[in-house]
């Protein structure tokens, strides 16, 4: 294990206790408490502005909670380098002059020596990560030439190259066509073999119910965290989405309609 900080494997991979976060006066996260088990896939669901991105950034130690604790394997999260934050595709500069291999190699930056080109061991790790996500043939491709699904898989490869145990994916499925979404969901399931734990923000409640172990319903405070059938009740969804939700009672499907428009819909 190359990670500098100790892991206590008897502790949960992620343990969040009474976390509060404000942007100035604006409360973004209100008293969030939960913990995750290793290898779980959790869908984080909530309306725009619910605090999903903020929660991920606080967990990753990019933003610092105003109060409360975030621990990863028993130690403060801000020191771990085993947490990967996978950005929303809309915030990435796709014209930056790098190719797929370069970006995946970035995941290993903390382990690289100054001055020299990354050695064999690192190149092998990058190639292995690319293979895992099925992109070995696209290593030399300029990143602006990738499809949305390929962009997303490249970032997962980068997280693998980083040797991340916990991947926080910010709206990975938004803006992808159906086959690409299917591919990505399959890839996430495959990562369970590697004991990778995943939290993914998503707008599609059906998908959340089908492809994730648990659902985390958020709107500034944690409304409910558990199995789909317990979380996605009409009552909980009304609390989360308020008037903005239409329940489409066509048998089973429920949709949060305020999200149909929001490729890149950060406010």
């Amino acid at each position: 294990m190359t990670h500098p900080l100790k892991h206590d494997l008897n502790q949960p991979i992620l343990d969040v206790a009474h976390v509060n976060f404000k942007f100035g006066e604006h409360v973004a996260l209100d008293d969030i408490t939960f913990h995750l088990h290793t290898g779980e896939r959790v869908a984080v669901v909530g309306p725009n502005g619910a605090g999903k991105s903020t929660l991920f950034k606080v967990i990753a130690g990019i933003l610092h909670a105003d109060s409360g604790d975030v621990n990863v394997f028993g130690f403060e999260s801000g020191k771990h380098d085993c947490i990967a934050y996978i950005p929303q595709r809309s915030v990435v500069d796709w014209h930056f002059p790098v190719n797929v291999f370069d970006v995946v190699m970035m995941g290993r930056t903390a382990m690289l020596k100054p001055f020299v080109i990354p050695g064999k061991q690192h190149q092998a790790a990058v190639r292995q990560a690319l293979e895992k996500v099925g992109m070995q043939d696209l290593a030399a491709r300029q990143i602006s030439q990738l499809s949305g699904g390929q962009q997303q898989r490249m970032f997962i490869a980068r997280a693998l190259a980083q040797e991340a145990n916990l991947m926080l994916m910010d709206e990975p499925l938004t803006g992808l066509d159906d086959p690409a979404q299917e591919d990505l969901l399959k890839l996430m399931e495959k990562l369970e073999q590697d004991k990778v734990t995943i939290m993914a923000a998503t707008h599609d409640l059906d998908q959340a119910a089908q492809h994730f172990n648990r659902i985390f319903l958020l709107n500034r405070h944690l409304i409910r965290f558990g199995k789909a059938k317990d979380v996605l009740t009409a009552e909980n969804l009304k609390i989360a989405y308020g008037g903005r939700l239409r329940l489409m009672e066509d048998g089973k499907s429920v949709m949060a309609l305020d999200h149909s428009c929001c490729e890149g819909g950060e406010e």
Partner: protein
Amino acid sequence: MIESIWSWIVQPLTYGFMQRGLVASILVGTVCAVIGAFIVLRGMAFFGDALSHTILPGVAVGYLVSGGAQGSLFWWALGTAIVSALGIGMISKKSQLREDTSIGIVFAGMFALGIALISTVRSYAVDLSHFLFGDVLGVSVQSLITILIFGAVVLVAIWAFYKQLVVVSFDPLLAATLRLPVKFLNNLLLILIAITVAVSLQIVGVALMVAMLVTPAATAFLLTKRLPRMMLLAAISAVLSSIIGLYVSFYLSISSGSAVVLICTLFFVVTWVVQSLRGKRSSR
């Protein structure tokens, strides 16, 4: 015929000031082009422009104190550039105004102060124009050595921290989750830009500095999609512009700084036109 071309090329080089000027502008062009790649990719062109103008009062004080000695002016420029770079970096984080507004206020105010200070000297016009537009043909051997040393410092630092600088530039959130020293790296880049500005002062002057920082790198950005190659092409474009510019300046008696910048701009325009024509053809 060949002989006359030969003498056309060699003749300027018989002057020591031309030799020194050429070496100095090749060195400065290379350093500006390499760090310019980061400036272009991070959208810091306005910062670079502001920074180069902001050092004028410091240079002016040095000028008044030293009576215009080249050697000490560099240190005044360097000191002011580093303080201003970190200062501007702080303003852009703390201020409630939009970043470009506060930078604009500071930059114009400092620039005016610099001009005011220099204008207190009776024969200021010539010296002022050297600060504004450079005096590449007045470079001494001593300044050449300073340029060489500090230019090398910038290039070696970029080489050493290349991988980390790329990560903070492309994806600052990744840099944070990898626990890279993000603040240090950002400040390092600001300081390296400051050193570059100080080193370039005598060659291009404050008014045209941003062109050397941005134009060759932008030309290279149009030509390649890999960063190391972009830096190389930017350096080549800057070096060619410097050489051609100085010859143009020598034979047509044009101000040397503006000649070099004009050639840089020409390279950019030609590249841009060729690339857009090509793009049209291939998309058809």
